[in-house]
């Protein structure tokens, strides 16, 4: 494991000052300047792809295919997504036309929040920090990034390369553990994105509360897989096994446990065993297609879960803390109070809980925290709809695992204990953007709205009500039944009509040189 040179604590406030200054300088205001920084970020990744692959192998024992398919390529994809769309995303948005308001040209300006903080975990040490960074740059923010100390090789590489490729007052990197993060959280930020676990998220939210900083949290949770007994079991087995054992189960969107209908228990476990044998013909330990656990502590934690389980281990179970190795493990007959059901497993262990039917599966899910994602394997629309309509989760995925994170245009985010806010693509941009409502009033509007000024008179009240009030749709039956209210008078007039009249009058008076009309209008404006 590489030695990480942690950032000196006293440098952290200075880094923030530099970034604040960079933001206030307005250098990222032009979209072209943002694109320039994003493109440099992309070249940083491309120029050093091999170094990143090497670092990923050091930190996570991750083979080059997984490194490319799950980290490098998706990161580049995110960065280029921001590069390609920043013009479109940052364009001011016009609300749909309304007669009453169009004269004041309402518009929503997309403005950067300021200087933002991104704290990322070890499991996707590139994607989860450089992806959001691209979003922050696209939004026009300057950013402090804090990659994980648990993936030292990648984090150190990022810390080395960022200053070479990006401007120092645009992005800075903090390396460190708890003391450094604590120091960072003492400071005021304009937005914080935290990806990690619920325990730390509470600390971060509490620190952010002091400065009223908005926070997006991407957390994990125990993601269930619900299986329709009539579905394509071979396909399900292959994709579940792949989703679970890729990156050794260390993905926040990894399937955590399987709710297996009793009727197909035997058949499906056999499918799973077959798939495992085909994945790792020379045993997983020797396979170059199988990763390692990030740290010895985590290995020991997962090892404990396996030794304490009261379920039946049908494959795997071996572990070696020194080598950070846990075999792909499948445990059946797991009870709800089992060690494996305590918290998010975040390792290559798949507990199987048997259920009678889909209703029992839904109840099982609803008795627990809302997960980040629910996976359903079924070819039956009604089955899928039933599960998704009766549960809450960050995402709802059918017949696929894990890779939905990379799907362009889908938000990635949890609900409740699995996080709040959405990331990836345009959602990253939106997270770091403030939608600033904007209006441009006109003096002559007072021809219509002048009644608002004191002294108030009944005539003014009536005129204003007439111009502003909308008519409600017909009275709800429930109210009629309860004997509430009589028929309502209809007041459907809008000031927009008055406005249209005023415009017509103005045009007419202008074009026909009717001085009398103009002096009348001028008199009304007073």
């Amino acid at each position, binding site marked *: 494991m590489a030695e990480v040179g942690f950032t000196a604590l006293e440098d952290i406030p200075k880094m923030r000052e530099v970034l604040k200054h960079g933001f206030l300088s307005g250098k990222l205001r032009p979209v072209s300047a943002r694109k320039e920084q994003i493109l440099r970020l992309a070249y940083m990744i491309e120029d050093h792809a091999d170094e990143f692959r090497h670092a990923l192998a050091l930190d996570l024992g991750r083979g080059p295919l997984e490194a490319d398919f799950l980290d490098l390529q998706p990161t580049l994809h995110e960065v280029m997504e921001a590069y390609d769309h920043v013009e479109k995303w940052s364009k001011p948005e016009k609300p749909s036309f309304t007669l009453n308001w169009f004269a004041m040209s*309402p518009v929503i300006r997309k403005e950067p929040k300021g200087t933002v903080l991104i704290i990322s975990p070890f499991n996707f040490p590139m994607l989860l920090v450089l992806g959001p960074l691209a979003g922050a740059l696209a939004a026009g923010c300057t950013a402090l990034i804090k990659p994980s100390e648990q993936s030292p090789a990648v984090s150190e590489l990022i810390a080395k390369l960022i200053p070479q490729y990006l401007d120092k007052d645009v992005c800075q990197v903090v390396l460190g553990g708890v003391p450094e993060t604590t120091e960072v959280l003492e400071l005021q930020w304009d937005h914080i994105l935290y990806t990690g676990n619920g325990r730390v998220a509470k600390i971060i939210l509490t620190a952010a509360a002091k400065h009223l900083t908005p926070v997006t949290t991407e957390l994990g949770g125990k993601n269930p897989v619900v299986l329709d007994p009539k579905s394509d079991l071979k396909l399900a087995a292959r994709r579940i096994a792949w989703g679970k054992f890729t990156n050794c189960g260390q993905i926040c969107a990894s399937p955590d446990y399987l709710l297996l209908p009793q009727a197909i228990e035997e058949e499906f476990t056999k499918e799973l065993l077959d798939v495992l044998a085909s994945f790792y013909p020379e045993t997983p330990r020797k396979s170059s297609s199988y990763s390692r656990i990030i740290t010895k502590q985590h290995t020991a934690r997962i090892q404990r879960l396996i030794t304490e389980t009261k379920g039946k281990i049908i494959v795997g179970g071996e572990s070696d803390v020194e080598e950070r190795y846990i075999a792909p493990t499948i445990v059946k007959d797991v009870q709800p109070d089992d060690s494996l059901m305590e918290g998010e497993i975040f390792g290559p262990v798949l507990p199987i809980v048997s259920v009678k039917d889909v209703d029992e599966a839904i109840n099982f899910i609803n008795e627990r925290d809302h997960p980040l994602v629910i996976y359903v394997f079924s070819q039956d629309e009604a089955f899928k709809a039933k599960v998704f309509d009766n549960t809450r989760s960050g995402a709802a995925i059918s017949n696929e695992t894990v890779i939905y994170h990379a799907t362009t245009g889908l938000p990635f985010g949890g609900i409740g204990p699995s996080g709040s806010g959405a990331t990836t693509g345009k959602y990253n941009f939106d997270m770091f953007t403030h939608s*600033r409502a904007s209006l441009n009033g006109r003096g002559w509007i007072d021809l219509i709205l002048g009644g608002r000024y004191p002294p108030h008179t009944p005539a003014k009240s009536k005129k204003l009500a007439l111009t*502003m009030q909308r008519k409600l749709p017909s009275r709800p039956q429930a109210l009629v039944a309860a004997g509430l*209210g009589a028929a309502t008078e209809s007041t459907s007039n809008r000031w927009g009509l008055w406005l249209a009249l005023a415009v017509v009058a103005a045009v007419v008076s202008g074009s026909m040189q009717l001085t009398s009309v103009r002096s009348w209008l001028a008199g009304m404006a007073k």
Partner: protein
Amino acid sequence: MQFTPLEDIPKIRESLRNVFHSGKTKPVAFRQEKLKQMGYLVQENKQALLDALKSDLGRPYLESDVLELVPTVNDIKYTHDNVHKWARSESAPFQFASSSMRPKVMKEPKGTVLAIIPYNYPLFLSFTPLMAAIAAGNTVLLKPSELAPATSQLLAELIPKYLGDDIVRVVLGAVEETTKLLELQWDHIAYTGSQRVARIVSAAAAKHLIPVTLELGGKNPVIIDPKSDLRLAARRIWWGKLVNAGQICVSPDYVLVPREVQDQLITEINLVHSEFFPEGPAESDSFGRIATTNHTQRIAGLIKETKGDIIIGGDVNLGKRYVAPTLVSNPSAEEPLMQEEIFGPVLPVVPVENVDEAIAFVNARQHPLVLYVFSQDSSFKAKVAAQTQSGAFAANELLLHVAAYGLPFGGTGPSGSGQVRGKYGFDTFTHLRGCIDQPGWIDTALLWRRYPPYNTWNQRVLAWITGDMFSDSKASRWWAWAWMAAIAAGFTMWSLSMSR
């Protein structure tokens, strides 16, 4: 006002959660029905509501009607008319690489939410989160302010009458009741009020990882272009400041005026003042009162300690909760009047050299909820907008941006986070649930290469089809495969038909 017993609070939340779990709030038609009932609630109890507002805030009927009741009904109507569009699932933008998975975004209610409301617009600010949360399909606990007892009490009576007693519940109370509410887990909290309480709310929410929307205040500046129509500016600023006696989170707080037109602006405000209140503001029924004696005292303190010149007003009557419309010229930047949100009918006028000094003045302070500019020059407006940060930006008009359809309402930084009104309100109480459905054949065709055992060839193919590397030829995409497949298929069919 009868406070809700503390021991009832957890039970009320339990019942709201159970109602949510029953799924009755899921159909959009149900939500529309509730919105309609909400609209009739306001429309049919107009006089009772106007009276309650008068008793709480001493507010003139015209102000309550035009700036509170009418916008409330309008927003409810707008939400009612549009919710079916907002609630529809959205397809992700088409992309060939992910099109097989049919990606879409489902709009799902967050669950059971808590809305804490301040006293200054007790009706509009109650219904703003309420209609949004109901439109999104949530169940709601509403905690109106104890500082507006008449309105809060009336709401507690009318809501069950019109909306039933299952999807919305009202808790009446003060600090103790709110503390109890904040101990519980909610699926979202919308808080409107002060920064001090916002910190407490956020810290309590952190324990349960609850997302929070904060609508706070701030010192909203008005920047004046020396070439602008000063008569118009004076009339609108003085109106905007005095509506609801300055107790609006979007009230203009202070004016930054170029030295060369400072006297002229003050003269115009003086003129407007006598136009507004020919018989004096104390006697006028067109001017409101301060909500509580405490707040009256606080504002009196600000006036007393000012080092500036009091041009208009300055008199206070604690017993009547009256603070006269007050214009203060040349206050010091350090005095309390320029340090805290005034939230009362006192307008400090601060002279500056030019627009750059005005921008620097604004940027040296916390981001306000709204920044106002008076100018007829687009480059002047653009400059101020681009070089400052604020919740909203309004030129030549005050307060009304809050009522314009399609605009979000919300602050940035210390003035709040998250947005309400219209679709923005709906989105605040909605979870965007990403959704894909992957067919099996994609594995047969392409993605089987992701499965172990891995090899270099598969790595290269996967990188080629999913990757977005830079290269001079931009052809390395899935669609290249698709074209090749389509051409191959076409060729096969053609050759088959030829051979027959």
